Structure formats: C-alpha cells, structure tokens
C-alpha cells in the first residue's frame, strides 16, 4: 500500500469517528440540557402538529430567513438544496449496487454542483461587500466558505474538466466500509477534494456547522405555545418530548 493510501485510509476513519462522536456528544448535550422556561417566538403554534409544520417549513424552506432578507435567503437556500442533491448523488460511491433512486437523481446532482458553488459565492460576496456582514465576520467564517468552495470546485473539475478514476475511488470507499482496504488513486484534484471533505467532517462538530442539528433543538422554534393550558416544567421528560414533536 502506498503512503497516500495509508494516509487517506487513516484520515477518513479519523474524520468519520470525529464527526460521528462529536455530533452524538453535541446532540446529547442539546437534548439533555433543561429548558427552564417556555420561550417560543410569536406567532407560535399551539399544538404539537403545528410545531412539526413550523419546523418542517423552517428547515426545508428557511421561512424565517425569507421574512428576514431575500438575498441571504436566495443564496443560502440555493446552496443548501444544491448541497443536498450533491450529497445524495455521492451515495453512488458508497453503495453497490447503486440504489435506483440514486441513479435517477444523478443528473440533478451533477448540475446542482454549479448552483452550490454559485450560492456560496453569493454568500461570500455579501460577507465581503455588505458593511454589516463584513463587520461580524471572523477569519473562520471566510475559511469555512473557502473550504466549501474548494470542495465544490475540485468536484466540478473532476466532473467537467479532467475525469478521475471513479471506479478506483469507489473501490477505495467500499474498501473503507468493509475493512478491505483498496488503493487511493493519485490525482491532485481528487486528493485535494477528499482532503477538504475530511477537514470539513472534522471541524463540523466544533464549528458553526452545528447549526444543522441546533435548529431542531431551538426552543424558540420547537416549543408549543400552551403555557397556560399545560404547566411547563424544565424536566428532561418535557424536554425530550418536545424535540421529538
């Protein structure tokens, strides 16, 4: 086995472990931290199905963001939806045989990559050009965008400029999953792409990317507005019941 293969094999096991353990730890923490008081934001649903509806539209359509700022909504929503399709498309490299619905969405996923990078550049432009957003940006905010743009561009490069040995890549990842290690092809675009993906996986549970699980636990969004009908108690049972609602 080449040094490159050993390095990437270890890197992806490490990144996977950090991502999984980090998220489990963080989500457990969110779920078990008490909610002393009831603080849903008006207009809040008064029933559990209402909360499910609110959360569904919040997570799929970014309702509050739409009310807030149309440009951020446009770039942010395009980026996230495109990312979703790109990720789903990539399932073909981890499944054998490839699930039929994954094959079906391949064309969408391929073009979504352009939308994803466009959305990211839109968000980055705001970060640089709008004085208020520039003021609140830390180096880490720019680095996060750079990382995502880098992943997108190297991915696009492999798809549309210089193809990589995709069969070998798939063999590598299936090998990781079944503990039957296979060589990592030597290809700069591919190696950079995967290096950045591993970095993203590692920083995920330590960074603002925690907004992904966080949004589901936000008490202002997931609490039922019924404090008069039902006395709110900050216990774990109440808490757990709510997040599942």
């Amino acid at each position, binding site marked *: 086995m080449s040094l490159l293969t050993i390095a990437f094999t270890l890197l992806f096991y490490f990144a996977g472990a950090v991502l999984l353990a980090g998220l489990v730890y963080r989500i457990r923490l*969110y779920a078990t931290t008490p909610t002393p008081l009831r603080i849903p934001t008006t207009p809040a649903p008064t029933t559990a199905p209402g909360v499910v509806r609110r959360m569904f539209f919040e997570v799929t359509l970014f309702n509050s963001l739409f009310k807030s700022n149309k440009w951020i909504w446009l770039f942010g929503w395009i980026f996230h939806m495109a990312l979703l399709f790109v990720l789903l498309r990539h399932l073909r490299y981890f499944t054998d045989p490839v699930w039929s619905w994954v094959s079906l969405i391949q064309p969408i996923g391929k073009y979504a990559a352009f939308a994803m990078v466009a959305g990211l550049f839109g968000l980055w432009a705001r970060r640089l050009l709008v004085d208020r957003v520039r003021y609140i940006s830390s180096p880490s905010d720019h680095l996060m965008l750079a990382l995502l743009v880098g992943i997108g561009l190297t991915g696009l490069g492999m798809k549309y400029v210089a193809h990589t040995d995709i069969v070998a890549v798939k063999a590598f990842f299936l090998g990781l999953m079944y503990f039957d290690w296979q060589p990592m092809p030597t290809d700069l675009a591919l190696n950079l792409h995967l290096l950045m993906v591993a970095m993203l996986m590692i920083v995920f549970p330590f960074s603002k990317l925690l907004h992904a699980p966080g949004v589901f636990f936000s008490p202002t969004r997931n609490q039922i507005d019924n*404090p008069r009908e039902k006395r709110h108690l900050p216990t774990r049972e109440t808490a757990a019941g709510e997040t599942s609602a």
Partner: protein
Amino acid sequence: MAEFETPALRPYPEIPPIEIGVMAHSKPFYAKEDHQQKIGFPGELIDNWQQAAVDKMGELVDNSRALRVFLDSCVKCGACTDKCHYYIGTSDPKNMPVARQDLFRSVYRRYYTLAGKYFPSLVGARDMDQSVLDEWYSYFHQCSQCRRCSVYCPYGIDTAEISMAAREIMDSIGVGQKYCNEIIGKAQTIGNNLGLPEPALADTLEGLEEDIEDETGVTVRMPLDEKGADILLVTPSADFFAEPHVDGLIGYAKVFHQAGLSWTLSSHASEAANFGMFIGSYDNMQKLALRVREAALELGVKRIVFGECGHAWRVAYNFLNTLAGPFDFLDPNYPLPQHVCEVTYDLIQRNALRLDPSANDDMVLTFHDSCNV
C-alpha cells in the same frame, strides 16, 4: 392637536451604514451596594471576578438549552443585522443582534470551545477582562429584550436570552444596574416597582374614583385588597400615576364596572412588570411571581387578570404558571392568567359593554411595533 414632524413613508426601510463605537459611552447608572445585596448579589465587584464570571457562564449554559444551542448555532449570516431598533436608531454595529451576542459568544468560545481555546483569533474568541466587561455593561443594557431579532433568525436565536444571561453574570460578580435592581428590591418588599405603600395606593385609587365620578357622573369603584372578589387585577404600577397609563387603569375599572364583575387590586402584588426578567434572574423573577400567587390565595379570588404591558405579559403568560403554579385553586374555566384585553374582547362579543366610539374620535392612533414578541 400637537404639531408633529411626520417622517416620510418610505417604500423600503433604509439601513444606516455602520458607525463603530458611537454608543460605547452609553450605559446606565450602577446599582449601589444595598440595591445589590437586597436581591442576593454581591455589593461590589468581587475578587477574581474574571474567573467567577466564566464559571457562572458555564453554569448558565449547562442549565439552558436555549443558551447552549444559540451559542453554537449562529452562522453569522447577517439576517438580523438590520432588525434591531437600537441599531437602526444608532448605527453602532455592536447594536446589531449578532454583534451583541458575539460580545458574549466570544468569551464563551474562549473558555468553552476547542477552537476558541487553541485558535482564539481565528474564531474571534476573547479573554474575560475589564474591556469586555465594560462593553458588556454598555451594550447588554442597550437591548430591550423585545425578541424582534429572534423572529427573523433562521435558527430562532433570541438575543434576549443572551443579554439576560450577561446581566445575570454581571450581577453575580457585583456589577448591577441601578434602575432594575433598586426596583426589584422595592417590589419584593413593598409590592410594586414604584414603592407605593398600601396607604398611598389606597389614596391614589380613591382619587381616581373621584376623577371618574367627576367626568362621567357614575360611581365606579377601584377596590383594593378586598377579600372574596372574583378577579385579582395585577397591573403595572405605572398605571397608578403616569400618563397615559392611568387612562388604561381607569378604562379597566369602567369595563369591570359595566360588566358587573367583582374585582380587586392587591397591595401585596401591586405590580405586573416583573423586572426579574430584565436581569435574567430566575430567582428574583420567581420571588416576584410568587407574590401574585400569595395575593390570590390571601384574597380568595377565582381568576387572575393582567393589565397591559408587553414585558409584564410575557412573564405572566409564558412564565407565571411555571414560576408560581400550579394554580389549581382558581376557577379552571378561565385561562391563567387572562389579559385584560381578552376579558374586554369577550365582553364585547357578548354585548356586555356599551361602547361610545365618539368618545375618543378626536385621537389619531397608530400601532406600535410590539414591545415583546
């Protein structure tokens, strides 16, 4: 009618460009030693306050899912940056909700996150020091905890939760704000924020009864501490003397009178505006809320109705049941508590009130963006 310079109605709001530091000088008076001690906080800045503040922060985050999720989740998208009236009115970027939160988040990151411990400048993490404390004192008191920003945040991040936590931390190390802390002390001993003792309150109400009789020729009572009344009315003490708040109280009395409802005020709980919320102190908020419970039990009422006040109503509607419940001794047919507007609306629906629209048609009215969502 008074002359007003009416601002031109614009199709879109204009967002002012940022002006760094223009409100850094603005801060409230510091609480005196006895204001602090009376409500359970150190009288002056304690030794080793930096560590104490950091420890307190950890304790608060461990006990509030809201804080924990909000501190982790902000992506700095900028959606809230033009939503705070303190920013729109001052142009100071630290009055943008996200920047206000970051005064807190930067310290949280430094002590409680891996990235902030090892790469502070990368993620904008800061040590808890005097300059941070000064900024906290200034900018966390330039937040009215209205929660408007939380409506617009894609994750529902509520800056009020953060500014409450910051005020609680500052109180716990001996840096309190005079206005709130002095008032909380008064309300906990005398019964209302103004510090009106029972005789003064009785006298004020008598005066208002006379005013109503002079104006309308009708004898409308304003009962105080009457045992056996059906309704306990809890209203902000500003209603007892300030214009135009007092018109509200006069209105409530007229409504109760015409509907034939039996009601009373309480001198023990003569305050709806629970300032414990402003300083983020659960204990103080609970002490004040318990006075309402004690008054309801003492007077043997069947219902509790709150007078109008945005922040008072938040504590009453959202928190009272949790803080001072269960209220199983009250009539279960009525919501606990009820807002006086709910009571009035219900009476109007049932034609129990005779209204004269011409009585107030000389006034030009407008809606105010809500004090609290």
